[in-house]
């Protein structure tokens, strides 16, 4: 399904490349992101 229709609202925003989409659900990369996100959230928790 094409996401962009010329001069309509969907024409202007950035859309991810295949490469970006692939890494969103790549298990190895996402496991690494899981660790990073947990650290980010724990930093937030420690600020309270």
């Amino acid at each position: 399904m094409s996401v962009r229709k010329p001069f309509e609202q969907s024409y202007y925003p950035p859309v991810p490349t295949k490469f970006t989409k692939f890494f969103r659900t790549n298990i190895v990369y996402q496991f690494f992101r899981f660790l990073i996100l947990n650290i980010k959230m724990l930093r937030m928790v420690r600020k309270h």
Partner: protein
Amino acid sequence: MARLLILGAGIAGQTAALHARRKLSRKHDVVVVSPNSKWNWIPSNIWVGVGYMKPEQVTFPLEPVYKKTGIVFHQAKAVSIHPEGDSTTSNPYVLIECTSQEKLGQKEKVTYDYLINATGPKLNFDATKGLGPRKNSLSVCTYSHADETFKHLSESIERMKKGENQTFLIGTGHGNCTCQGAAFEYLFNVEFILRKNNVRDKAKIIWISNESELGDFGMGGMFLKRGGYITHSRIFTESLYTERGIEWITQAHVKEVMEREIVYENLDGEEISIKKDFAMLLPPFSGVGLKAFDKNNNDITSQMFLPNGFMIVDGDYSKKPYEEWKPSDWPKTYQSPKYKNIFAAGIAFAPPHSISKPMTNPNGIPIFPTPPRTGMPSGVMARQIAYNIVDMINGKADEPKRKASMANMGAACIASAGAGFFKGTAASMTMYPIIPDFEKYPDSGRDLRYTSGEIGLAGHWIKHFLHIAFIYKAKANPLWVVVPE
């Protein structure tokens, strides 16, 4: 002996009750009043709404937990607060009305030394004509609403499998709604489930919202460092919608919901109608309608609550233009200025003003989100209130010392965009502070070292993990205290 009375057993009420019970010796009472017999992990209701979870997976009965921890539980709704007692007693009390089958409708007086109002919101479906599950739209605000919504979603999917086209309208059902995040999650989960059922091509999905722009989420949006740029969340959010072929309507006040159509007004004052087959529209929130009376039985509700029913606490409620708003306007201890032994936590406290810029259309209708104060901030403020009360009961302090202003608090938010261990994704966002501070952070209002956003499978894992962890904690299982708010 002192008694702490907590009204409400949601995220704020449960957090306050468990921390207070843990810290107070058994000679003091901790009493919880809640009209519901079950605790509900509300952030997972959206998964009930798409059939990924059953209502039993997002709820558990409260009574066994309170029995185990030594908390007194009344299944009842609070009717009125009497902070000075009445003509027969000088003890402050709350009048409650039982909601359990055995004692349905019975009224009781529950006295207190300290009171926390954590009643959460009233789902004000009546604010919009035709809005709500008993009328012409659906909701995911409660687990039962979400379960009913899933049945309607399943019917729509069946119709599409037979070749029918369907229009899905998801978003906010009034110009003053909050909790856009929950509607956003539901929208993306519906889109995900339609793809999974191979019927996406039969569905037109439209987001409708009172936000001024996509990505506002009631917090005026946020700035993120991405790809060498500092980018507003609007760009990030528009990209997510475009990628999924979802249309969006912002700056909308839904005026009426009919069986197959909705009518909304935009910021230009135009009235527009859209056809729909399926509508999940969140209602605006108001206070639960608690009344307050003084010793002589005079109604003092307006001295303790704002007209919207939320409790006045230690914020700056003076009317001033957006340009003069300051982070210091936001409450720090959540103590009632009139009665020092009363506090409010979570949605129950009255925010001094919105976070997003207020906007009104030429017909005088305000169209902007009210501030979100659920989840993490709600738990943090409840814990600090409980600790302050414990200190005061134990004679360690005579006034609340710990502070939990949303202007000095960060938040982490995981917004599901589809559920599944391998194919699911969620947007993981962190921000600091919740209330933008343009004096300290002139360009973005927030500290960019702590403000971030990304979408991926890791976010789904975290959301699922948090579901398990927070239910574990709310059940007061061993070592619950290590799970942060």
